[in-house]
């Protein structure tokens, strides 16, 4: 693994060459769909000539392929967008480029970011960086694996219900989902607008802090962005009161995961922090809320794929209804269809109050319980996922089982609070396991600073 400072002050062309060589050597993990070599070398030459500079001058990175980027297609790992070449770039990529960073490729994901293993990609699964018989996690599996393999020091992902944190946990890297509204989403393929959040994969918290200072802030092209509140803390946090979420280490959580979390808790105590158990009973219901709210938003956001303006068009359609219906049937993966149809179901007249509104009311209760917890605790802690990386194919036949991989990450998503996945002790057979640090809205800097202070402890 590498960190951002390893690349600073070196030849940008050499950095890009090394990263691309490494990506090609490690092709069998199928973490990357495309390399953006042409543009990468062009930009590297400009960095080396001094034309482009900044805090990330010459640092290579990768983005999840649901970010629109120049030099190659932007597919969201779907057949729908297989040949879609975007005329614009995601605003977050533009921000990184303005600091001299160089995008070298596009990472694999579950099609349209629907999934928790990257097995729903239309172009094949990404393999876990530590054990090739296991999943990378998802949906940002490719971004996690390129970071874990040291191809690049950081990658961008999107997290709607855990899609950064869970693959970070499965691959032993840092995955950060900031406060909802921190980072512009302009130019990222929309999934569920009320929880979609852009975030980062890194190998250490200092790099996450640097990326947050660059990426966070108001953007006029994304009206949900907040005024910039992010400021890295200069001093190590001391004597924090930390709540261990009881429901996060209960039934259904693997013993190795529990051990890994409790190990981190002990380290926090040794560092002088107070850790006490806290109960958020509503957590039991959050996965059901999530699988109502998110499909509802998915069904709306994916209505735009009509086979007419862009994206896949069926060759077999004989009229307009068939053009819509067949293009969408051919362009979407089965998980996309499940979510769209569940969304149509919960939004149907007669069902709306029973499902969608009930879930949004539950969301209020969840936020209230988080608020109560943050009255007493500075930070909450728990595992990221109930298990380490599972076997490829293990959950593909059972959507509910696949959904439970998100059970510990969706609460922070529905509440819009920042959450970080940091590596803790691995399982006995060497599988990485992350621990999740959650803070109240806009307290992003606190969890990054805490995680930084705990590194090498």
């Amino acid at each position, binding site marked *: 693994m590498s960190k951002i400072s390893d690349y600073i002050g070196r030849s940008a062309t050499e950095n890009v060459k090394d990263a691309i060589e490494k990506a090609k050597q490690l092709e069998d993990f199928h973490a990357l769909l495309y390399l953006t070599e042409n543009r990468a070398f062009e930009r590297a030459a400009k960095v080396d000539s001094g034309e482009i500079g900044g805090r990330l001058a010459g640092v290579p990175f990768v983005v999840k392929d649901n970010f629109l980027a120049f030099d190659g297609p932007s597919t969201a790992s779907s057949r729908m967008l297989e040949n*879609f070449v975007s*005329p*614009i770039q995601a605003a977050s990529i533009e921000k990184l480029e303005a600091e001299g960073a160089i995008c070298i490729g596009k990472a694999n994901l579950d099609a349209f970011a629907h999934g928790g293993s990257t097995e729903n990609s239309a172009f094949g699964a990404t393999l876990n960086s530590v054990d090739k018989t296991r999943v990378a996690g998802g949906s940002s599996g490719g971004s996690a694996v390129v970071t874990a393999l040291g191809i690049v020091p950081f990658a961008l992902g999107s997290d709607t219900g855990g899609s950064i944190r869970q693959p970070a946990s499965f691959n032993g890297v840092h995955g950060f989902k900031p406060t*909802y*509204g921190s980072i512009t989403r302009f130019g990222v393929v929309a999934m569920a607008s*009320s929880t979609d959040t852009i975030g980062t994969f890194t190998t250490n918290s200092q790099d996450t802090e640097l990326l947050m200072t660059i990426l966070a802030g108001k953007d*006029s*092209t994304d*009206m*949900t962005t*907040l005024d910039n509140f992010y400021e890295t803390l200069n001093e190590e946090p001391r004597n924090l009161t930390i709540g261990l979420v009881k429901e996060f280490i209960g039934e259904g959580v693997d013993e190795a995961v529990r051990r890994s979390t409790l190990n981190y808790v002990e380290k926090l105590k040794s560092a002088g922090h107070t850790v006490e158990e806290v109960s958020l009973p*509503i957590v039991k*219901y959050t996965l*059901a809320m999530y*699988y*109502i709210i998110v499909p509802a938003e998915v069904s709306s956001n994916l*209505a735009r794929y*009509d086979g*007419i*303006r*862009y*994206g*896949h*068009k069926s060759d077999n*359609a004989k*009229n*307009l209804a068939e*053009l*819509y*219906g067949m293009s*969408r*049937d051919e362009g*979407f993966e*089965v998980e996309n*269809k*499940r979510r769209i*149809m*569940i*969304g*149509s*179901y919960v939004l*149907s007249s007669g069902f709306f109050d*029973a*499902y969608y*509104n*009930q*879930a*949004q*009311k*539950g*969301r*209020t*209760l969840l*936020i209230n319980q988080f608020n109560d917890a943050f009255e007493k605790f500075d930070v909450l802690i728990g595992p990221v996922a109930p298990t380490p990386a599972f076997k490829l194919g293990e959950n593909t036949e059972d*959507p*509910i089982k696949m*959904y439970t991989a998100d059970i510990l990450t969706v609460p922070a998503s*529905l*509440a819009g609070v920042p959450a970080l996945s940091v590596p803790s002790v691995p399982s006995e057979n060497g599988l990485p396991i992350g621990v999740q640090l959650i803070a109240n*809205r806009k307290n992003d800097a606190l969890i990054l600073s805490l995680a930084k202070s705990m590194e090498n402890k």
Partner: protein
Amino acid sequence: MANISISDVHHLANLSNLILSDNEADMLRVDLDEIVNYIEELKELDTEGIEPTYQVTDLQNVWREDEIIDYKVSREQLLSLAPDSIDNSVKVPKVL
């Protein structure tokens, strides 16, 4: 205990603008039925008197100046994205 019948699947597919094969519809019926069974558990949650939360920023009505932003994208580029276009227009099948 099935919530979702095969005719429900076709109705939902229709609402979702999806034309499914028979095989796919059968398979999705089983999956959707399981998912609906799972989300049913939310009905037991007491939400009497609770307001729903549709979004988590406190932002409301974010305004901006009514001015044109230049995204540096040409008409040709946009038309080239459409699977079918003719005479500077996106081509669609006959509607009426």
